[in-house]
Each structure stands twice: as C-alpha cells, then as structure tokens.
C-alpha cells in the first residue's frame, strides 16, 4: 500500500531523511518510532504530498506521491503534528468545509460528518467553536477530518502527544478500531506508545532506519549479546577461567558477593544461550549455585541508546558549526 524507496530530504544542506526504504502492506498498522528530530514528520509530509523529496520515490496505493499527487491525496487521511485547525469555526462547520473541498455533496457530507462524529466520540463538542476545545478534543476533530472521506490510508503524526493519560488510552483504542478498516501509519517518539498500538515498528534515528519488525522480531534482532547472570560459591579465579573458556562467551566480570559467593556478569555473543553449558560446568566442578539467569537486551534499552546517540551526534554537529 505504501512504498518508499531510497527517500532523501535535504533542508538546505542538512539531511533530515537519509535514503530510507520501507513497504507497508494493505491493512497493516505500522508505527514510525524515533527520537525528536529523527525525520518522522519530514517523511510523513513527503508521503502526504506536502513537500517533495530531494531524491528517491514514494507511492501510496500504486500512485506516485509526486507525479500523481491529487490521486494520493484522495485516498489518504492525514493528521499533521499538533492537529492544526481553523480555530474560529465550529467543529461542524470545519468538517463541512473539509467535506466540500474533498468533493462530497451535501447528503454524503452530512452522512460522513455523522459517521466520524460517532467514530471519534465528538458528541456535543461538534457544535463548539474549535478554539474552545481541549487539546484532546482538537486532536479528535483533526482525526475526524482525516477520516471524513473514508480513506484507504491513515497517516497520523504523533497522534497522542500532549494528551493526558486517559485521552491517550482512548486515542489508542480508537486507532485500534480504525486499523480494522484502514492501513495505518503513525509516528511517535514514545516506545510503549508504538508497542501498544502497532503490529510492526520502523525505528528511525538521524534520518535513517535503524531497525524494523514486529515487537518480537525487534527484540530478537536487537538482542546483540545478551547477558548471563551467574552466582556461584567457588574459587573466583578458577570459576572465571573455566567459564571464559566456553564458546560464545565474550567477557566475564566477577565480583565477590557475601560469604564466599561470587556474582558473574557474562556477556555473550549474538543469539547464543550458554546457560546449559555453564550449568554443566558448575555441576561438574561441584560448586554451589544460587542464580543463573539470561538477561535480554530490551527494546527500551535499545531505543534509549539510539536516542542518546542521536543527541550526541546533534551536539557535536552543533559544535562543529560553532567552531
């Protein structure tokens, strides 16, 4: 449904999006996850025909976003970051205007407004001036607008940012509902957000895709060297030496614990689980054992790390500019 190939966007000489490629199939719900400044908004703006890419190609429903932009705009519903709206109008007037520019005639428009009002629980707020509405309500009006023409594809830029926890939960449920009828691509800079709503996540940092897949796949993929925690009572030097000799083990750290117990942190190679071997050694040497546990690198850790890396990169590039 959505195809992106080698997409690059330069603002002046600053690369906001750097050669990204991905596919999204019909009916999928995909999260676009990345720290602030990763290039999420820029990518979504290219997909929604707001701005052209510097190079590369993107298409939605087989139509090129640049050469066939009107066709793309007709099948896409877009909620921009912070849901910009015509504040002076009432929500109903606004939606009616949006229906008109989408070419819906009066009966269709009224039916569509009724439908989205129910879908997004706008209720009585539909007859309030938009500038009087809370952030959460405004977000819903924006979402109603994106749904007005029953689009094949929904693109939502940070749909829950600035909402309170209750509203966040409601919005998540709503998006879940919508995913049954639409292909959904949503962006977020909050990991649990994406984990909760999406079947698949594309992680972007510094304008590049750093990982993608279902939460399980991601966890598997980013488990670069998990850690084994071992607590034994035995001669520390010998314990350390024998364990280090096992294959698949990168490094061993040993600290003395209480009463002759030692706690070992063992870094293993990718996709290696040496628990069984380690246990056999312990048994053979007849040491006492009170803990043996595999600690997997979490998505959280991974995300925190790439976020920190990007922040560091930005700091250093700023320093370059200054000097």
């Amino acid at each position, binding site marked *: 449904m959505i195809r992106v190939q080698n997409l690059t966007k330069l*603002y002046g000489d600053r690369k906001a999006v750097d050669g990204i490629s991905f596919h999204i199939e019909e009916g999928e719900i995909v999260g676009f996850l990345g720290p602030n400044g990763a290039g999420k908004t820029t990518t979504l*703006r290219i997909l*929604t*025909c*707001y*701005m*052209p890419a510097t190079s590369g190609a993107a298409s939605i429903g087989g139509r090129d976003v640049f050469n066939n932009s*009107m066709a793309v*705009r*007709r099948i*896409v519903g*877009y909620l*921009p970051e*912070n849901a*910009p*709206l*015509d*504040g*002076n*109008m009432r929500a109903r*007037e606004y939606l009616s*205007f*949006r229906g*008109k*520019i*989408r*070419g819906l005639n009066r009966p269709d428009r009224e039916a569509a407004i009724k439908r989205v009002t129910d879908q997004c629980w706008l209720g009585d707020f539909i007859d309030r001036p938009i500038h009087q509405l809370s952030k959460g309500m405004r977000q819903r009006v924006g979402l109603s*607008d994106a749904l007005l023409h029953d689009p094949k594809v929904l693109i939502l830029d940070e749909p829950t940012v600035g909402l309170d926890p209750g509203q966040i939960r409601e919005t998540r449920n709503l998006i879940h509902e919508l995913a049954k009828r639409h292909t959904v691509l949503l962006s977020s800079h909050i990991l649990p957000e994406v984990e909760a709503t999406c079947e698949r996540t594309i992680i972007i940092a510094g304008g590049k895709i750093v990982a993608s897949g279902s939460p399980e796949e991601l966890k598997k993929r980013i488990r670069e060297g998990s850690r084994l925690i071992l607590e034994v009572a035995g001669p520390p030097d010998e314990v350390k030496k024998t364990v280090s000799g096992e294959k698949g083990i990168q490094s061993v750290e040993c600290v003395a614990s209480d009463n002759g117990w030692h706690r070992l942190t063992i870094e293993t190679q990718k996709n290696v689980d040496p628990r069984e071997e380690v246990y056999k050694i312990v048994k053979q040497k007849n040491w006492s054992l009170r803990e043996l546990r595999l600690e997997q690198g979490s998505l959280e850790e991974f995300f925190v790390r790439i976020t920190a890396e990007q922040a560091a990169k930005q700091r250093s590039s700023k320093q370059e500019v200054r000097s």
Partner: protein
Amino acid sequence: MIRRVTALIQRELVANFLSPIAYIVAALFLVATALFFMPLTLVEGGEASMRVTLDWMAMAVLVFTIPLLTMRTLADEFATGTIETLMTAPVADFEVVLGKFFGVLIFYLALLLTTVVHVFLLLKYGAQDVTVVLYSYLGMILLGGLYISMGIFASSLTRYQLLAAILTMGLLSLFGALVNEVAGWFTGLWRQVFNYVNIIHHFEDFSKGIFDTKAIAFFVSGTLFFLFLSVKVLESRRWR
C-alpha cells in the same frame, strides 16, 4: 474546481465575518468615504464631482484598508499550520489562491456598495453624469482587485500578518504614488516603463469617464500577474 473554490471563498468570508479586523476595516472605510463625500454633497458650491473623491479614495483609503484585509489570507495559514491541511487535501495551489482572492474581493465589493448611498445624493443635488459614475465604479473594482492580488502576494511571503500588511502598503504606495517620483529621475524608455506601471495613471481614465480598454487590460493582467506570483510562492514553499 468551482465547488472547491466556492468552499474556499465561503471559508474566507466566514473567517472575515469572525475577525475583528474586518469590522475595524469596514468602520474605517465607511467613515473615510463619508468624510470624502460629505463636503461634496452637503456644502453648497462644493465641487460636485465624483472624480476628485474617487481619486482620493483610491489613493488613501484603499492603500490603508486593503492591506488590512489581505494580510491575514496566507500568512495566517502559515502561522497556524492550517496550510498543511489545505495543501495535503485534493486542492490545487491556484485554487487556494483564487479562494483567497475572491473571498477578499467579495468583502471589498460589499464595502464599495455602501458608497452608492453617497452617489445617489450626488446625483440628486449635483449635475452628475451617470456614465462617469459607472466608469468610476468599474475603475474602483478593477483597482481593488489589483490591490487585493498584491496584498495576497505579500501575504504569501511571510507568516507574520503585520509584515504582510506593511509590505502591501509599501507596494501599493510604490506603484501608486512613488513611481511617479521615480519616473521623474529618468528619461526615455525607463520613464515610459515607470509611467506605465503607475497604477493611478491608469485609474484616472476611469474617473474621467473615459472607457479605456488598455487600462482594463492593465488592471486585469496586473491582477493575474500577482495572483500567479502568489501561486508560485506557495509552490516554492514546498521546496524549501
């Protein structure tokens, strides 16, 4: 296309209707035109001529009121981010600009209509040629259209309404009065060029009651030119 532009015009009129600026401008316009007409209609022996009045209105009133009406048009879309919802809907950039143009033009025509009262008084008390009045109004409409297109162009350049208004006043004064000065510095071809782009020169024909197709062509093409520029600026904003 017609339906989309109509929807955009409606939105523009609603926005005007809800904005205090539009009411202030309307009030200013009514007071200013009344002040110009008053001596002509009430004071005996006053020159009962539309000509002077309309020239003055053109020069003074429009240079201050039109920029206040046009400043919001595009600048505010950039400032609030609503431009993103417009330009990702199936609406062409030129339709957005046309919607803005006709939205402001209709409001302006409504203002202009209020001056008809004075004209009736004039026709009643002074010997006034009806065709002169009609041509004058044609001139006012064409002039307003050109000024509005220039205002929308200025508004497409910035997200700050105030800047757009100042820029428009600058542009209107330049092509209205200053260009007259500038023409004086030159001779030959350049002088002709500067005289040609002098808006007031072309306008004077109408207020003299002369039906001048060249002047009409000047206003229409000038309006189209600035609308075209606005569309181009809007397009180029995508490319930044």
